[in-house]
């Protein structure tokens, strides 16, 4: 510090800036191509003719896509709600007060879905459902999604909880607030940004999942990613570009919101 421009200059390493911009281009250029060609008038997804919204119209009118979108939304909402509720409770139990025996184990178990490769989770869940004969239709998919959504909801909530000032709760307790009151009036409002951020992340990881859904879902339980995958196998069409773009925009919107809310009042 202190040395002003000199210090800044010392930090510079040749070629690093160029690499950073290259990295950004690498991450975004392919997405940009997909989005641009979803507005292409012709059937080609690589040769530009003229601007058109027709593929969006076709995609929205497609009953297969409508059905898949409805399924995706149902699964994502249920998985998000279930994961957020149980993750909030778990975060309250693990992040506060004195450490108890098994704390580390509980943390590991909750985050385990992040460690196990998705394909392994997919076949294991399929085997499990087949073995116990569970056939709740879309309910099977919702249950499978809830499991891997839990750590995504848990981590931001726990992080928020750990950064919170304990003095407020203590003050409330000193002023004869009941534990429920302290929770309802102090902890919950302060924790809300973490809960919302966690819920949004849970929502998008559910919305984006392909492999676990593909393994677990039966006929008529197609979600959007599963639909897109099955269409891609038969060739890429601008209609798929259009649906993909919509799905991308939903993800980007939710990540952005989660980013903004999660950072608020930090």
């Amino acid at each position, binding site marked *: 510090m202190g040395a002003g421009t000199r210090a800044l200059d010392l930090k510079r390493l040749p070629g690093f800036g160029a690499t950073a911009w290259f990295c950004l281009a690498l991450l975004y250029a392919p997405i940009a191509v997909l989005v641009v060609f979803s507005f292409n008038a012709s059937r080609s997804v690589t040769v530009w003719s003229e601007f058109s919204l027709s593929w969006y119209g076709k995609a929205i009118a497609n009953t297969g896509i409508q059905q898949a979108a409805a399924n995706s939304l149902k699964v994502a909402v249920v998985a998000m709600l279930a994961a957020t509720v149980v993750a909030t409770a778990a975060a309250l139990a693990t992040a506060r007060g004195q450490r108890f025996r098994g704390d580390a184990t509980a943390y590991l178990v909750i985050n385990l879905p992040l460690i196990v490769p998705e*394909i392994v989770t997919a076949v294991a869940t399929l085997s499990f459902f087949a073995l116990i004969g569970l056939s709740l239709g879309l309910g099977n998919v919702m249950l499978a999604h809830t*499991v891997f959504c839990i750590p995504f909801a848990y981590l931001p909530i726990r992080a928020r909880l750990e950064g919170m000032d304990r003095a407020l709760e203590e003050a409330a307790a000193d002023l004869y607030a009941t534990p429920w009151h302290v929770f309802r009036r102090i902890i919950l409002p302060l924790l809300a940004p973490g809960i919302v951020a966690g819920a949004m992340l849970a929502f998008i990881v559910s919305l984006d999942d392909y492999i676990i859904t593909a393994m677990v879902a039966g006929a008529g339980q197609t979600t959007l990613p599963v639909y897109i995958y099955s269409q891609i196998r038969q060739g890429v069409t601008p209609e798929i570009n259009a649906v993909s773009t919509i799905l991308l925009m939903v993800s980007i919107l939710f990540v952005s919101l989660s980013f903004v809310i999660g950072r608020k009042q930090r």
Partner: protein
Amino acid sequence: MVAGATAVPGAGEAALPGATGTRLLLLGPALGIVVLVGILPLGIILVYSFLTPGTFGGVVWKFSAEAYAQFLFDRDFLDDSLTFNAAYLGIFGRSLVQAGVATAACLLVGFPTAYFMATRPPATRNAWVFLITVPFWTNLLIRTVCMLLILRDEGLINNALVGAGLISTPIVMLYTDFAIGLGLMYSYLPFMVLPLYASLEKLDFRLVEAAYDLYAGRWRALTRIIIPLARPGIVAGCLLVFIPSLGAFLAPDLLGGGKHLMIGNLIQLQFASSRNWPFGSAAAMILLAAVLLALMLYVRTAAPRQRARP
């Protein structure tokens, strides 16, 4: 619960949750779901990997180590003799190589990127973090499809090169090992940049300054000061790229065209079309073992050093 809440202020027991009972009640649902639907199924496929395949998928409850033997040997139809077959071992080897190359490529691009981000002013820094975070959370299937659009014979790169008159016939990029590697790198690049950034952001630049004062050149300062200090981030980033790359399904499936299988595709095939659940379970167990081994190495090498730091 009430008793806990009214404890002496500052005793670290202000409000929720009080007694161990409350804690268990709060932890119960999350742990219950993960254990029942997340961990128990892993036990089931461990058992399945030692059973006999059913004719139409599923398993027959009869012990057999055939699934693991099949990984290394072919059983002769006529005389039941075993001959060594390196095909499946090759798939596992390819997965390791692909994941390793993708990790190295991510590190090569990710380290300068993270360093550049960490040396920006705070406002610009946040913008960069946001821009790297967005792809991290965007649909992996769609991002892989984007790569497919670019790499195809009639894709953007080939069209541009042919259009510019540089080449007459398209370069075949899709359905090659190169396409898979690029796809993996593209998929998991943010997983490398973010932990590296977290490490580099905390870097004490006075140490770098001291190195320069002691006549170190940029290269020396980088290799002797910056890289060693960023080690926890490097190790974490490599792990976060290597693990999902090793078990990747979408990149090898869509960009490899089913010709260049990785272990993730092998597992999927056994449960989908080949209908050999025990063999698929065995392959899943081997993948899981490889991942756990990588994690254990991480805990052994990185964690003590992290703790030792002030």
